[in-house]
């Protein structure tokens, strides 16, 4: 019964993290860039939103500002990598560390800024889960449709091709440094947007909220894609899968809390989920495909594997 009661909250929070998963998908899957900036940029989004709300700005403006603040963070990581040759993982880590100071500055040196749901007219809040779910569904749907259209434009195609084959992209006249920087800006903008929603939902922005955010985003991606790729491997289905993965993650999260797992161990759980999803395909490939059994007619299928062999 307690589990049923916790379900709407799990779905609501899962949708917020699913939106974040979409942002991570753009960098990790589409751009093929393991971008660790997100642990910082999600907090930046939360901080900007919370501080602006406290300053009396309307909520929609705060959310848009959060998006752009996140984009700037992604832009910096992209610049470190493309213009200054910093390896991608390190570029993300450096920006993430910079953002810790930036976020503290935004919060005015405090580690937490509260948002008062009675004073501010919030889009989402944990006291109203049905509303949160509806608002988040609209946000997620708008983001997916927007990205879907974007990635079919001339420019969008070149961002996709940059992640898929930078060599081909350059040969076809694509400025892959530019597409990478702009792709990372877009990715982190979406992550910061989810951070802004998270701050509203929880009623506060906390400097430490972002720790391990990338892992939750990756968990949402792996859980989601494990199902959606089997249905149809296209962009929209993958996006829906990622959001679904976020929801599943938070349902499992709530479930294990109800089972009595101390919240201290939840980060361990997140990391193990991601490790397992990364390990399974690898182990399958390494240990279970070397020797195939002969089919009953005795012809070894491995000989003459056809034109795709």
């Amino acid at each position, binding site marked *: 019964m307690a589990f049923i009661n916790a379900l709407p909250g799990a779905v609501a929070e899962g949708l917020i993290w699913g939106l974040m998963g979409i942002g991570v998908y753009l960098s990790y899957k589409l751009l093929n860039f393991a971008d660790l900036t997100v642990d910082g940029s999600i907090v930046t989004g939360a901080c900007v939103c919370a501080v602006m709300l406290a300053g009396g700005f309307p909520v929609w403006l705060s959310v848009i500002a959060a998006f752009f603040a996140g984009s700037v963070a992604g832009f910096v990581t992209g610049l470190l990598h493309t213009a200054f040759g910093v390896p991608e993982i390190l570029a993300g880590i450096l920006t993430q560390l910079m953002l810790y100071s930036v976020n503290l500055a935004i919060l005015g040196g405090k580690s937490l800024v509260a948002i008062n749901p009675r004073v501010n007219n919030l889009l989402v809040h944990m006291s109203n889960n049905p509303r949160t779910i509806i608002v988040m569904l609209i946000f997620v749907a708008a983001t997916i449709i927007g990205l879907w259209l*974007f990635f*079919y*434009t*001339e*420019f*969008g*195609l*070149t961002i*996709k*091709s940059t992640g*898929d*084959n930078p*060599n*081909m*992209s*350059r*040969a*076809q*006249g*694509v*400025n*892959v440094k530019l597409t990478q920087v702009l792709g990372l800006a877009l990715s982190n903008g979406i992550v910061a947007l989810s951070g802004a929603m998270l701050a509203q939902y929880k009623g506060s922005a906390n400097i430490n909220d972002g720790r391990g955010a990338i892992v939750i985003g990756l968990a949402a991606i792996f859980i989601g894609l494990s199902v959606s790729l089997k249905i149809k491997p296209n962009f929209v289905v993958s996006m829906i899968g990622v959001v679904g993965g976020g929801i599943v993650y938070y349902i499992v999260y709530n479930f294990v809390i109800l089972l009595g797992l101390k919240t201290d161990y939840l980060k361990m759980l997140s990391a193990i989920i991601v490790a397992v999803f990364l390990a399974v395909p690898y182990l399958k490939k390494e240990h279970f495909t070397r020797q195939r059994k002969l089919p009953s007619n005795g012809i070894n299928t491995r000989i003459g594997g056809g*034109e*795709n062999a």
Partner: protein
Amino acid sequence: MLRITNLHKTFNPGTINANTALDGVDLHLNDGDFASVIGGNGAGKSTLLNAIAGVWKPDCGTIEIDGVDVTQMPEYRRAKYLGRVFQDPMMGTAPDMEIAENLAIAARRGTRRRFVWGVRREERIRYKALLATLELGLEDRLSHKVGLLSGGQRQAVTLLMATLNRPKLLLLDEHTASLDPKTALKVLELTDQIVQQNKLTTLMITHNMKEAIAHGNRLIMMHGGRIIVDVSGDEKKNLTVKQLLDLFTQASNGAISDRMVLG
């Protein structure tokens, strides 16, 4: 169409691994020239092609394409003059994208990418017709991912992509070397067909002497980062593998590589 003057490139200069890959290359291709380039391993063939494509900048010398000095131009910007096909069939196409999307990206080489629909309907019709000319059954697979194609098919698509926007210069870097003999022949036939139809200026590296003799109106042999033989016209047409080997031995003072002989 292409004018290369005194091109030098040394990798890892000043170290024990210093390697002079290009040692003063001068080359002038006329409009419509189809030159095949041969030479042993380390002769500087690929280095020359990469220098033209802008993969890195030469130490000194200039490269002009159709009167434009591109020596300092970044790779993506000079791409508008060039069509490129690589030795590795995986390098020229984006595997996770549709055939039509790959072609559409190539069709916009040299233009500013805008926020408008990336693959228009009338383009699909054009691509379908072009793919049909390859005779590989790809015309009905426009929305298939390129990663599902075989190496030969991918190389044929790359060739199409390289020539979709008529390039001022087509660069073929041993583009049949990693294909099986039958597929290699097919891709070479396609190359001849496309080059002739569009009257393309072409530079083709090959390891196969017979291929080098059979294709193109010019034959260039490289050794030690220099061009040591450059024949064209009837002289080139009447060449035999034997003569070519003699030429090579003569010009390179007897240093002959196994791979050249096998070719």
